[in-house]
């Protein structure tokens, strides 16, 4: 490999600028953010790698089409305010996306530099700009004159927050209804502090409130009011209630004490700060923790358990490492921190003692069989390969489905078999007049940026719907 490091010619320094981060040995004992963010020098060095392509492939890879070469050029010019403005034109939550987007399968996957070497670290640059803005103080957003129209947004996750922000900017009066005591959806209750500091989520919520959006926590649609009643009270409704219903495996022993859904475990740890002795929240501190699953949720649960003081944390996943849906960076970080990966392994039974406490997980080895219809080789159990993994805490992170409470007492909202809402891909329009939907409630568990993208499209469609109404 040619050593181009430090060479200015052609803007093509091969190696990307590394992200400063807490050493693994230290960070596995605290809940502080793992990655520390680029310094100005780092950002300038990394930005200078970008070729500002005329036909930028990276932009196509971004679900909200951030003008990547545009903002990176401004970073090179040290015009950070201009850069953040450019990003925010299409992405309302850059501080969050820069941290949690699966860049390696989206924007960075398409970067031309990635063909021969490493792609530009687009996410890190995006985060740098957003953090820069927060440090300087966010400019007060401007909204258009009031239209007199009222829109209800149900759910305050990335889909709801984005839709609310865009609608408020267009002059509509927006109220967000959120069932939990804090806004943010998965950003607040799911993704841990060490990956996405809650202060950042709070700042985004405050930004949206500054736009005149009213956030009503502790307000469950389907319980306090039905969706039908909301339709009567508002000119339009956006549903961004996510996919918050935890799936269990249905195996023996799943109800033993110490067996958690990832949702419960992470909610106790993140939203209710069980790691902070000042909080009353209870959570079982495991010595041997087993987490079942291979996505971001599993990584987050495993790394949280480690930080709570577990001695041995292992991830049990039925496919191989390449099939793991988690962000690459999270898998690497988890490995560095000492999480054990038991791949091609599936739990068959959970064991417990006479006091009903979990004592272990019986697992079976898997091998990849013939490719199925989707072309993926599906794992099949290897007969007689059962073995026992001792555990006093088990976290199940095998996926979630939409929570059906929202449908209680209302009619006419078409759903799929999997419980997701049927909505137009471009507009978010549902089968119910005036009701739009986007994010995980439509797609099933997906990504922050795709939920935001859906919120954005729906806001545009709702605005048009309100003009015609």
């Amino acid at each position, binding site marked *: 490999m040619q050593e181009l490091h430090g060479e200015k010619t052609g803007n093509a320094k091969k190696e990307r600028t590394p992200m400063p981060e807490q050493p693994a040995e230290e960070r596995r004992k605290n809940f502080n953010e793992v990655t520390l963010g680029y310094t100005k020098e780092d950002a300038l060095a990394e930005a200078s790698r970008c070729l500002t392509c005329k036909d930028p492939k990276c932009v196509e890879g971004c679900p909200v089409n951030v003008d990547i070469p545009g903002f990176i050029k401004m970073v090179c010019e040290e015009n950070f305010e201009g850069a953040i403005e450019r990003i925010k034109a299409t992405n309302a939550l850059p501080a969050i996306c820069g941290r949690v987007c699966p860049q390696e399968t989206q924007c960075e996957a398409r970067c031309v530099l990635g063909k021969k070497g490493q792609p530009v670290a687009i996410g890190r640059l995006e985060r740098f700009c957003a953090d820069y803005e927060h440090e300087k103080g966010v400019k007060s957003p401007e909204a258009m004159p009031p239209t007199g129209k009222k829109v209800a947004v149900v759910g305050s996750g990335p889909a709801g927050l984005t839709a609310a922000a865009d609608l408020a900017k267009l002059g509509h009066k927006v109220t967000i209804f959120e*069932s*939990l*005591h804090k806004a943010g959806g998965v950003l607040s209750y799911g993704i841990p502090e060490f990956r996405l500091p809650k202060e950042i989520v709070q700042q985004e919520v405050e930004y949206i409130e500054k736009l005149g959006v009213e956030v*009503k*926590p*502790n*307000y*469950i649609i389907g*319980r*306090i*009011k039905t969706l039908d009643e909301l339709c009567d009270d508002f000119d339009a409704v956006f549903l961004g209630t996510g996919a*918050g*219903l*935890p799936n*269990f495996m*249905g195996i023996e022993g*799943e*109800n033993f*004490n*110490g067996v*958690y*859904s990832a*949702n*419960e475990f992470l*909610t*106790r740890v993140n939203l*209710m*700060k069980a790691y902070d002795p*000042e*909080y*009353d*929240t*209870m959570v*079982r501190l495991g010595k041997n923790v087993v987490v079942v699953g291979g996505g971001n949720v599993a990584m987050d649960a495993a790394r949280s358990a480690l930080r709570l003081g577990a001695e041995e944390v292992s991830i049990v996943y039925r496919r191989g490492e390449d099939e793991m849906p988690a962000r690459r960076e999270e898998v690497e970080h988890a490995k560095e921190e000492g999480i054990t990966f038991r791949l091609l392994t599936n739990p068959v039974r959970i064991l417990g003692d006479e*006091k*009903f406490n979990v004592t272990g997980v019986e697992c079976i080895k898997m091998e990849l069989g013939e490719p199925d219809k989707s072309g993926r080789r599906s794992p099949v159990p290897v007969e007689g390969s059962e073995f026992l993994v001792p555990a006093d805490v088990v976290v199940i992170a095998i996926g979630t489905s939409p*929570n*059906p*409470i929202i449908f209680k007492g209302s009619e006419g909202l078409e759903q799929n078999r999997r419980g997701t809402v049927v909505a137009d891909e471009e507009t978010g329009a549902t089968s119910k007049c005036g009701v739009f939907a986007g994010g995980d409630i439509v797609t099933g568990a997906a990504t922050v940026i795709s939920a935001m993208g859906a919120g954005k499209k729906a806001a545009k469609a709702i605005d048009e719907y309100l003009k015609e109404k």
Partner: protein
Amino acid sequence: MAYRILEKEEIAPSVHRMVIDAPDVAKAAKAGQFIILRIDERGERVPLTIADFESEKGTVTVIYQEMGKTTKQLAKLSAGDSLEDFVGPLGTPADVRKLGTVILVGGGVGVAPIYPQAKAYTNAGNKVISIIGARNKDLLILEDELEKASSELYIATDDGSKGHHGFVTDIMKRILDSGEKVARVVIIGPPIMMKVGAGVAFPYDVEILVSLNAIMVDGTGMCGGCRVTVDGETKFTCVDGPEFDARKVDFVQLMNRLAMYRGEEAKAVENYEDKCKCGLH
């Protein structure tokens, strides 16, 4: 957003009644539902049954017993103070219909959830027989209210200081044995009392419902912490219940799951009481 406490009174030793200003909850509440409250930012989310509600005034009444840290802390609040969070109504409302004769059995603070049900069953045209019990007469609650809301009211105390000397379930059995046609019994109280009560009613041709008090976090079906086994299937108490067919409930599992944090809870109370003693809290 804060929820103001309008009234607060100790109605029996360590049992408190609190009226809270929560118009949205009050408007939507139905018998059999519950709320989850949080005292402050650092508090736990604690579920309590809606013991009464007035939709017009926008108030919700809860009755709670001092058990651990949160309920002890709650006991120290008074009218004029506020709660950080108060969310509800949660759970599937009780299936109140005209059935004929309904027996409502309440033990301890389980008497509190019986009261809105007595009103609802009476309003639906049923003959309501309420049976309430406590360890002794000082611990009895809502006697006058239930007297009014039911056709008949029976009392049992463990020590015989008032009413029947023995258990509520003795009275229930007597009525079931009397040959009176009873369509349904609803038993609410500590899990062991519900288990025993369900066992007593089991041989009779009567529907038996219990209201379960699993440990909860969100109360909306999002965490699965409240799971119970009913008829061999895993159910979420907060959305599928809290009322279930007693014949199908795995009470042993419920009781075991309720013991999940026993060690931690004891420690929390100890720390809290130590702190209180310093006079600063």
